[in-house]
């Protein structure tokens, strides 16, 4: 997995696995955090195509070990799933936006949609009754192709912490 600075964001791409070199990532993230002088480091992993357990655990340890004030943007589907599998959002972390799969029953098509936390997805402590519909092309309506209670579980788990960041 490679990384580069793009404005205030660190953008990652490739595959997060056992071959990921964490030492240069640690240096880049540390230097970025210092340059931002206390502002939150924005982490964009939307160009990382997939990950395995070795890479994911290495990533979570890296972010937590650095004690970063980090904001995840455009969280890809695989990472949202991992936030629910493993406790990877400890410390001063926040999720600003995430990608999610949607389905259009009208024409049997699928799409990946970016959702902004706090607006399209309100912060709730339980998503079991949460319903979301997204307007698609030509007046069509997209429905979530996931169980909101499961997919947004990490938002519910960190409801209080995330609400403080949003209130900011």
């Amino acid at each position, binding site marked *: 997995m490679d990384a580069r600075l793009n404005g205030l964001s660190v953008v990652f791409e490739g595959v997060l*696995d*056992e*071959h*990921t070199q964490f030492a240069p990532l640690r240096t880049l993230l540390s230097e970025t955090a210092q340059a931002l002088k206390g502002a939150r480091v924005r982490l964009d992993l939307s160009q990382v*195509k*997939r*990950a*395995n*357990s*070795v890479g*994911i*655990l290495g990533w*979570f*340890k890296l972010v*937590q070990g650095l004690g970063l004030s980090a904001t995840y943007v455009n969280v890809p*589907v*695989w990472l949202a*799933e991992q936030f*629910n*599998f*493993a*406790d*990877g959002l400890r410390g001063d972390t926040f999720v600003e936006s995430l990608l999610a*799969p949607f*389905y259009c029953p009208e024409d*049997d*098509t*699928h*799409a*990946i949609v970016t959702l902004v936390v706090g607006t399209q997805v309100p912060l709730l402590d339980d998503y*079991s009754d949460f319903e979301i519909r997204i307007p698609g092309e030509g007046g069509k309506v997209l429905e*979530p*192709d*996931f*169980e909101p*209670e*499961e997919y947004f579980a990490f938002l519910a*788990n960190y409801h209080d912490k995330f609400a403080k960041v949003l209130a900011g």
Partner: protein
Amino acid sequence: MKRVMWKIGMTEHALIVCRDDDLIGLAPDVFHVVTLRGDSTDKPALPDEFNEGRVLATLTLLNTGKGSAFDRIAPAQRCERETLRSGRSVIRESAHKKTLLTEVLRAIEGLGGSAHVPLYREYARRMTELVDELVLNALFNANPRLRGTDRGAPFLLAKREEVIVRWRADVHTFCVSVSDPFGTLDRDTVLRYLGDRDKTRSFVGDPSAGLGLRIVFDRSHTFVLEVEPGVCTEVVCHASFEKKLRDFDVHERCLHFYLRAAE
């Protein structure tokens, strides 16, 4: 929503599904478990998505005939119009694993045609992650020589240590078999993992934290473990490509464990 564990068994005419959290009473050599979405604090009824016929069909296939579970439940070429993709890899070094994962990814991405690119791209990722975790386990958990070593370091396996991977995919299903020549997986380890399957992992101080198995359970619907102690382990995973990802997610998960006596 959590998943609830049920024991399953089969008589000549019917599938028996019963709620029982106490897995200690399971037969030592062969057991079958299904997990379904539900509230673990109550005694739930079987949820609507439980497909009894599907589970029964798989159990029948697994319990009859000879040979690998892979050969019994993997998709077969049924007619010329259907596209069947398949592969076989021998993993001796990390480059072999990378090649295998690329092959699986590309094969599944191409299955849905232009109308279903996002769906099959997602299935391709899920199945690639499934194969990745199974191979990692066969390389670094099953093989005593590599257990505890740096997983990113180059390795070269001797012929007697090779990991064999077979896979088949069509537009409806994916099936993979990963075999190692060690047979080190035991029943208690499987039961421990099963009991922990829904817990959110704390990764502090634990190199793997069982996350790999969690991923395997999430990415496959049928999980068959055949162990010949000290000789070999074959793990076979099967997943159905539902029309919607949501249906893939709520689908029941079945684990079938067979401890075979060494021949």
